[in-house]
């Protein structure tokens, strides 16, 4: 069972990888499926604890995280637009910005978790939903950062151009999806309960 690296094999792969219609539809279907996963957890939160929320929520931090994620959205958007117009320098810079902002978001989640552990630990019913939803979202941010890193590196090595940048488009779409989920999670955990 020998492995070979023939030019033909590489060529056929490259062709199979660049099929925009199939790739786009595949990603949209995956995101639709993910939406069901998030809605399962979001509806669980309402089933077990309605819109109740504890006193000690760090509203300022949550608002900051929301804006951080929004900022990373625009930088990701700029990175994609830059690659679509063959502007490598801008692509490079904006991808890095997005990754750094994503990492900052994760740090913020860490701080938030640390406070939550004393105020509403996982063995309270709000805490269960809180850790589950924020944890799931943070996991998606983490995978998004890893994927952004891979695409950034490949872009740096010159794999993409204006007519061949599906991976950039795909990873950025995924990143926006993670933001989209936050649009639902943020009010679910922080705002619906009122002040």
């Amino acid at each position, binding site marked *: 069972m020998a492995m070979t690296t023939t030019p033909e094999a590489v060529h056929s792969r490259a062709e199979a990888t660049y099929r925009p219609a199939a790739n786009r539809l595949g990603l949209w279907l995956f995101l639709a499926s993910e939406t069901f996963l998030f809605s399962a957890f979001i509806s669980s939160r309402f089933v077990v604890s309605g819109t109740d929320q504890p006193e000690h929520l760090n509203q300022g931090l949550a608002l900051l995280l929301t804006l951080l994620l929004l900022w990373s959205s625009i930088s990701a*958007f700029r990175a994609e637009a830059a690659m679509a117009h063959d*502007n490598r320098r801008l692509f490079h810079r904006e991808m890095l910005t997005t990754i750094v902002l994503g990492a900052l978001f994760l740090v913020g989640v860490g701080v938030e978790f640390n406070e939550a552990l004393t105020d509403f630990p996982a063995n309270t019913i709000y805490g269960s939903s809180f850790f589950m939803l924020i944890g799931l979202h943070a996991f998606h941010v983490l995978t998004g950062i890893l994927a952004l890193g891979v695409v950034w590196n490949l872009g740096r090595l010159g794999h993409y151009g204006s007519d061949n940048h599906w991976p950039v488009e795909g990873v950025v779409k995924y990143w*926006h999806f993670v933001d989209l989920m936050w649009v639902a999670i943020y*009010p679910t955990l922080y*705002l619906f309960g009122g002040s």
Partner: protein
Amino acid sequence: MSDNSHDTAGLMTVIQRGWFTAGALAVLTLVEYVVATTVDAPTLWLLPFIVAKGGLILEVFMHSSDLKTLDGGNA
């Protein structure tokens, strides 16, 4: 790559659209927060914000219109 000046102008137009959207999202987020902290039982008040923000992200950032052209083209 062929026509650099044209490309740059096109890029600026796209990016400007992104900034407008991001600005709108930021404003919506802040207003959403204010509504949530001032109104009693704000759930119903917040739903329009979620729909508007989600719609903007889907339409501008995620290019949801590309779903219309996905069929293999022989239907």
